[in-house]
């Protein structure tokens, strides 16, 4: 193999390797950009969720404290007049429910009975025992406590306030709300769909079926093997991954990657939801439709790759042409000159305008001296 072929092959190889490396970098950059986009959305949703929770805890606490200072309500409860209590609290509950989304207002007796005295959401149901951690904590500390807990209807954010009457705690007031409304707000803020997924072991199938039935919704218990979609802002559950292990979702959240379906591109991320006992019982899935962004990014990536390939070809051509013109054609010229001098043309003129020209002239001079 002559030097020209070796040099050309080397140049092509170097440019080919460089092109492949640049294409890999371009692809990596595309993946990193999508991950960055997902992280931004994930952090945005996490922040929004935390802020909504903090804000609603304040609102629930304020409502609860205000209600526990209502003399008429206090008196009805202290005298255990359930019907009177419902009569007084019913209109207030309706207002709280309609205006502020408060779905739970319960009065729970002190231990050891710890039974529900009044349940505004379902007045006919009472006397069931409460063992929720928020209640237990409030009993233990004598203070207002709050936290999210998995209930029959899903996740509920609750505050428990001791009810004091004539300087004695006569019971505990539970004010709560389903956190479903958070998801609509998160969707508004992040422009992403949201789903609350809970590990089935924290739920009861019959109770869940009953809850769904009361909302005129189909039982979705069997949609996933281990998890249950408690709430979501979208219907297409097929874009949710099947194999989430709720307990293993990292505290800071996780990007699950890009998912293509029906000409749409979705970025999925997830972060855990802890209940009042700080146990991870579920997770919130963020599903962002990034079809437009991903399309633009893919288009840019293709343009970049095409540009890299075209530039490599142009560069390769320029280098080979330069090598041909400046080196190989000059070497051929030198061989021709030496041939002519050896053939007897001792007056053959050589151009000495560069390194090869000077070298050629020196060789020719030596030959001339030898021949003449």
């Amino acid at each position, binding site marked *: 193999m002559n030097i020209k072929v070796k040099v050309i092959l080397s140049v092509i190889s170097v440019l080919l390797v460089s092109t492949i490396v640049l294409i890999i970098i371009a692809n990596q950059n595309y993946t990193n950009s999508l991950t960055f986009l997902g992280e931004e959305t994930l952090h945005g949703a996490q922040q929004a969720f935390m802020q909504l929770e903090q804000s609603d805890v304040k609102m629930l606490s304020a409502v609860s404290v205000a209600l526990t200072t209502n003399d008429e309500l206090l008196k009805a409860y202290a005298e255990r007049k359930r019907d009177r209590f419902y009569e007084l609290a019913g209109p207030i509950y309706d207002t709280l429910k309609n205006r502020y989304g408060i779905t739970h207002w319960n009065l729970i007796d002190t231990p050891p009975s710890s039974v529900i005295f009044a349940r505004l959401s379902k007045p006919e149901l009472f006397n069931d025992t409460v063992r929720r951690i928020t209640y237990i904590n409030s009993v233990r500390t004598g203070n207002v406590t709050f936290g999210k807990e998995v209930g029959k209807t899903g996740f509920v954010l609750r505050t428990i306030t001791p009810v004091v009457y004539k300087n004695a705690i006569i019971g505990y007031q539970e004010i709560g709300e389903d956190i479903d409304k958070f998801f609509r707000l998160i969707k508004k803020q992040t422009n992403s769909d949201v789903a609350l997924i809970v590990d089935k072991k924290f739920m009861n199938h019959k109770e869940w079926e009953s809850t769904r039935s009361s909302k005129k919704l189909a039982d979705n218990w069997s949609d996933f093997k281990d998890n249950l979609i408690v709430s979501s802002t979208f219907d297409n559950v097929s874009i949710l991954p099947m194999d989430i292990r709720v307990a293993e979702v990292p505290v800071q959240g996780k990007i699950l990657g890009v998912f293509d379906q029906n000409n749409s591109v979705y970025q999925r991320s997830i972060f855990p939801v802890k209940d009042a006992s700080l146990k991870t019982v579920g997770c919130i899935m963020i599903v962002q439709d990034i079809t437009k962004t991903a399309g633009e990014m893919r288009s840019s990536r293709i343009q970049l790759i095409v540009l890299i390939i075209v530039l490599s070809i142009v560069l390769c051509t320029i280098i080979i042409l330069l090598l041909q013109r400046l080196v190989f054609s000059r070497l051929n010229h030198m061989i021709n000159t*030496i*041939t*002519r*001098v*050896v*053939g*007897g*043309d001792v007056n053959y003129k050589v151009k000495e305008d560069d390194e090869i020209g000077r070298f050629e002239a020196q060789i020719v001079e030596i030959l001339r001296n*030898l*021949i003449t």
Partner: protein
Amino acid sequence: MGQLFDLRQKIERIIKQKGLDDIDIKGKIGMKSGVVICFLKPETPDDPNRMARVKKAASEILNTIV
């Protein structure tokens, strides 16, 4: 003595017959054989080795058995 010079003359005849570039062809034969053709004079001593090299190179370049 004179065999190499005779060979030079033979080569020059063939070049002339074929109408080739004298300088170029003699240069190529010289480069290939390592013997400068124009150095071959009547008094150049016979050398079978050089003779064979020039013949071989000339035959290849002129495409004729020299």
